[in-house]
């Protein structure tokens, strides 16, 4: 009896185990869903087929990084629902990534062949990373002549950023912005340092130095912090270094990183000198979010990592006026780093899914009503010139107007240069080195060598 019972128990356990294994294919995505998302929404097809597109029928998944309100399940559910009213055959599951773990989750998904159908982020990931590695679907059919004309009317660099070296388009863009810096207006007023900033928000390198001195003289211990801890926000430090003496981050063809140019080395040395004189501070452990928090707390007078989205994020927590300004440049003509966000489709070998994914992307980006609304949700600006001011008449109109003024300073979108991931690490290492005793000459040479190796390896 005991033996029979033992055998029954053992059989039951094995069956349970195998049952668990048997459901791996379906449950793995659920497990990943839990791991990858802070919230998840699954909108099922509605029965309303009055405006149904009978040609589209697929279950697709979309992963979004936290871009404006595209991190909010309720908001994205609304878009999915309105799309499904016209396309009842398409089921869309949305999962939400964060910037801390998102890339690792996508990498794991690529290796496990469990990638989503749609992913929302920028060209540095979609085009120069996953696209260049053959993981994405060519979206050339979305880039119609009309779309190209409309987008190029805003900036030709957008199309260039979304197009890979092989001529394929791996991203269809929705919105863009320029990254700027911001100052604590009250602190600057109290230090009589506002005089060094032009009315249009630009300032020269010389005046920036004077403003730092004025702030220091007024008793502000830490005026600003050059953060070097890695993990994002590098566009702020890049723009700061490049603009000081009109350096370029890459060559025009995006084939080489040029932080070791004379102009950039001069900019790096200037930062070291300001830090040495106590006019500016550095923290090799701080990441951009740490610096932003110091700014939001009122501990420091400026941040090098600002944009419309950050302003919206910190609007309620700050007790001062965060005033967006351009990065200081020797000629007073800044070149700001751009951010482009849009959608890509992973190549999962299923044409029906790819077609449904493209239809959904087109709905989000190009639909006459949904397109401008989608841009508003991101908190950035439309890539389509025909959308005009999508914030006109909204409560965000004045705030966004302050940032749209900087769109004219949009610089080259060099984030698609090969070896980008290695370059980012080398960049942080270089900043850490120059602020801890290594000469700018040596540190920038090390950086250049690391980048050259990365570019060679990417071929």
């Amino acid at each position, binding site marked *: 009896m005991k033996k029979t019972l033992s055998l029954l128990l053992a059989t039951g356990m094995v069956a349970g185990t195998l049952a668990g294994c048997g459901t791996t294919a379906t449950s793995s995505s659920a497990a990943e869903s839990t791991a990858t998302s802070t919230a998840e929404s699954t909108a099922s097809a509605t029965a309303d087929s009055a405006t149904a597109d009978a040609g589209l029928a697929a279950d697709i998944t979309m992963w979004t990084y936290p871009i404006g309100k595209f991190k909010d399940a309720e908001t994205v559910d609304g878009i999915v629902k309105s799309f499904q009213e016209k396309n009842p055959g398409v089921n869309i599951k949305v999962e939400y990534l964060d910037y801390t773990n998102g890339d690792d989750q996508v990498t794991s998904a690529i290796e496990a062949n469990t990638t989503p159908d749609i992913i929302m982020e920028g060209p540095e990931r979609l085009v120069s990373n996953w696209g260049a590695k053959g993981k994405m679907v060519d979206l050339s059919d979305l880039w119609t002549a009309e779309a190209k004309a409309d987008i190029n009317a805003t900036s030709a660099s957008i199309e260039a950023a979304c197009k890979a070296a092989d001529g394929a388009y791996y991203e269809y863009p929705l919105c863009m912005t320029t990254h700027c810096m911001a100052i604590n207006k009250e602190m600057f007023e109290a230090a009589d340092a506002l005089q060094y900033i032009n009315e249009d928000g630009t300032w020269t390198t010389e005046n920036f130095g004077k403003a730092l001195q004025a702030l220091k003289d007024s008793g502000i211990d830490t005026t600003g912090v050059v953060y*070097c801890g890695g993990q994002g926000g590098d566009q702020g430090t890049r723009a700061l270094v490049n603009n000081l003496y009109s350096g370029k981050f890459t060559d025009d063809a995006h084939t080489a990183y040029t932080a070791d140019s004379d102009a950039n080395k001069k900019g790096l040395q200037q930062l070291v000198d300001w830090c040495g004189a106590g006019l500016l501070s550095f*923290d090799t452990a701080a990441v951009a979010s740490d610096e932003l928090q110091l700014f939001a707390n009122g501990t420091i007078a400026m941040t090098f990592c600002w944009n419309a989205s950050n302003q919206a994020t910190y609007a309620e927590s700050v007790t001062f006026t965060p005033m967006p300004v351009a990065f200081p440049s020797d000629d007073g003509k800044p070149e700001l780093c751009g951010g482009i966000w849009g959608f890509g489709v992973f190549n999962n070998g299923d044409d029906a899914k790819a077609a449904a994914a493209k239809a959904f992307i087109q709905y989000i980006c190009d639909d006459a009503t949904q397109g401008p609304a989608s841009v508003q949700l991101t908190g950035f600006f439309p890539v389509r010139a025909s959308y005009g001011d999508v914030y006109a008449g909204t409560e965000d109109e004045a705030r966004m107007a302050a940032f749209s003024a900087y769109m004219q300073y949009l610089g080259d979108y060099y984030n698609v240069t090969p070896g980008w991931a290695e370059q980012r690490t080398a960049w*942080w290492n270089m900043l850490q080195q120059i602020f801890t005793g290594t000469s700018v000459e040596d540190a920038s040479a090390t950086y250049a060598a690391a980048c050259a190796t990365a570019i060679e390896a990417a071929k």
Partner: protein
Amino acid sequence: MGNGKSTLMAGQKPTVFNNAIVRQQTISAYLFLLPAMVFFVGFVVIPMVMCLATSFFNYSMGKPFEFIGLNNYLEMFKDQVFLKSLRNTFVLVAVAVPTVTAFSLWVSCAIYQMHAIKRSFFRCVFYLPVVTGTVAVAVVWKWMFNKYTGLLNYILNATGILNENVSWLGDAKTALWCIILILFTTSIGQPIVLYVAALGNVDPSLIDAGQVDGATPFQVFWHIKWPQIMPTTLYILVITTINSFQCYALIQLLTSGGPDNSTSTIMYYIYYEAFKLYRYGYGNAMGVILAIIIALLSALQFKVTGSGATD
């Protein structure tokens, strides 16, 4: 298990009937083992074999999967970041393992004879960082080490020990020691609980006999308690060594290996190469080397402490 003779009574001859019983018992034993075996093979053995096999290939996302022999291993020993990570890992292990073991033993000796409530209180205090999530621990320590608003700088400046703020996690001279300190606080909980239990199980009659014979407290500890808790010590040494070698989350959350790779460990560098640069083959080769190092050190620990356990 599976040995038919061992299940027979002394002098009993094996019969067909007995053999059938033994076979049935063996089958049922294997069936009971099967669920665990499935997981062990699926999630440990097969990944280990795949890791070893792919370490001989150029296995990178978007690149042809090609056999490159020992190239990954040869590259590793020319890679300055790997060598720096290896050195950092050894420093971390060399400092963390003895200090964690010694401190845990000292605390356990001090609290194991206390009243149950007091003993439980101390066990809770020391175990708390273990059950607290790594992210929460890292956030709290990051705040304490913050250059501008950190508690440590505030106290040291207020007491006159420092006259300017220090970026504890941003200075190559201090960053690794900060990581070791945090690792220490999160590592002592389990050894203390184990040592308290082990010391409680030491035969009191031996201690009494030793004391009657005039042994000093140190002699009682060294000649009576220490040999009896040696198996626990061995377990603690092996587990702490492995955990220290695998220190990754704290580094990822606090320093990302910086400044200038001064806190990069092998585990972090494996993550960086595999997940940031998509060089899975190279990452796997480093994983193989790490596994070999841990295995050798564990074997050494067994050799050194194992003899003490049988005294």
